[in-house]
């Protein structure tokens, strides 16, 4: 029997909202795929596009950046900057003829355990369809 492809997704989660939502999803015992490797950051705006890019090129099948809903950022406006940088990164990647499907930006509030479950599940499903990140096998990146 062929092993089913289990995606590895790197998740940059903001401490105040999405990380708390992940905690809540855990304590509420919500079921979801074990695909997410979490990196806790103080705010989504901490995520320099280069970090996302590094994860992507090092072979992460997907990269998730997640933080507080617009207007709710603990530092008031961090996520607005994060959104601009994410949009910029996507544009760079697409202009180079690469697919940006594997990168996702989501807003998940601290009380949204079920939404966290849903985002992780759906993103994992999407990545499963895309298959393994081809960068994993390249020797020159």
């Amino acid at each position: 029997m062929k092993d089913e492809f289990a995606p590895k997704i790197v998740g940059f989660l903001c401490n105040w909202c999405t990380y708390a939502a992940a905690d809540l999803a855990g304590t509420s015992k919500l079921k979801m795929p074990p695909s997410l490797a979490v990196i806790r950051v103080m705010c989504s705006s901490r995520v320099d596009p280069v970090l996302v890019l590094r994860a992507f090129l090092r072979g992460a099948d997907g990269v998730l950046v997640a933080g507080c809903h617009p207007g709710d950022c603990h530092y008031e406006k961090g996520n607005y900057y994060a959104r601009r940088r994410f949009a910029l990164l996507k544009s760079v990647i697409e202009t180079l003829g690469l697919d940006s499907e594997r990168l996702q930006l989501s807003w998940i509030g601290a009380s949204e355990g079920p939404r966290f479950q849903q985002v992780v599940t759906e993103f994992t499903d999407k990545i499963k369809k895309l298959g393994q990140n081809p960068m994993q096998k390249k020797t020159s990146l």
Partner: protein
Amino acid sequence: MSKVLKINKSAEESVQELLKFLLKSGKVKGVFTLRKINDNGAVAYSLVTSLDMLKDAVPLFPLMPANGGKLLSRLTLRGSVAEPVVAVVRPCELRAFIELVKRKQGSLENFLFISSTCSGVYPLEISVNGNIDKKLSQYWDATKRNEIVPDTRPTCKSCEHFLPYTADITIALIGKKDIGNKCEIFLNTEKGQKFVDGIDGEFVEGKLESEEVVSMRNKRKDEKKKLFDEIGIEKFGLKGLIETFGKCIGCHGCSKVCPICYCNLCYSDSQTYEHKPFVYEIELKRRGGLRVPPDTVSYQIGRLTHVGISCVGCGLCADVCPANIPISTIFLKVGDSVQKMFDYLPGRDVEEQIPVTTFKTEEFVEVED
């Protein structure tokens, strides 16, 4: 319409004359300009305060040994110049300086800027080989005939922003048939007008945005399209990226000469990228082999995400690349994409905020999931 100073001498002599006037009259205390450093056609930027040294100035020489904007930033990083200095730089160099000033890497204070409608510069290689003097007549002929100058940098041939945005004074060169014996000097700002007050010459009215300028802009646009098609950046994909950046020797020379890459503690040059053995082990297990030095693709795309938004297309990065990677063309293309997203033109206006340092509350919802 703007005020124009007409001098009945060749463009080169006229600018020389203007600089001499400014320095002699004490209106400026220093001149920042290209200067001949020997007879092989080697030129370098210099900051000159003595009239005698000004004799070797070649302000319009079609070479860019370093981005003048980067140099002006170095001169003013620790504090603005104390007395008036006139700087003669190309439009993209001026734009680079503006971008650096926005990043608090320099100061515009006390500068008078002279620029020109720009025909571009030759790659450095041509001057290093001592062949540039043979090219000069071709350069000026093409400029007069309003043609793209052959053999100049690819990003010059396809540059649409050859009219300076923030210069006080602009020397009209593009499509000017008489630059061999006449020169039109546009005084764009009050400051520019004040500084030339008292000089010998005729004052008239004129329009910088001439028919020739419009037609040259179209030619450059066509050239740009051709260049982009040739290199096929949007078709790179993973394969193309590895082919293109796989040639990179990792010297990071491109970032050293780039005016926009100003960090002196670059992440890519840091110890962070000197991986511990276990990182190599993990990578090797998965990949079965690893190019050394690693990370050339990652370095390049990383630089694109940091610098693309402000790339002025000066072309220096491609010029210095020992692996002949068309980096400046790639940066120009990606720069175009990201600059368009934010309706941003680097160096157009010092008050215009760098897009990643500001935001609107309602925007880019399409990138959210």
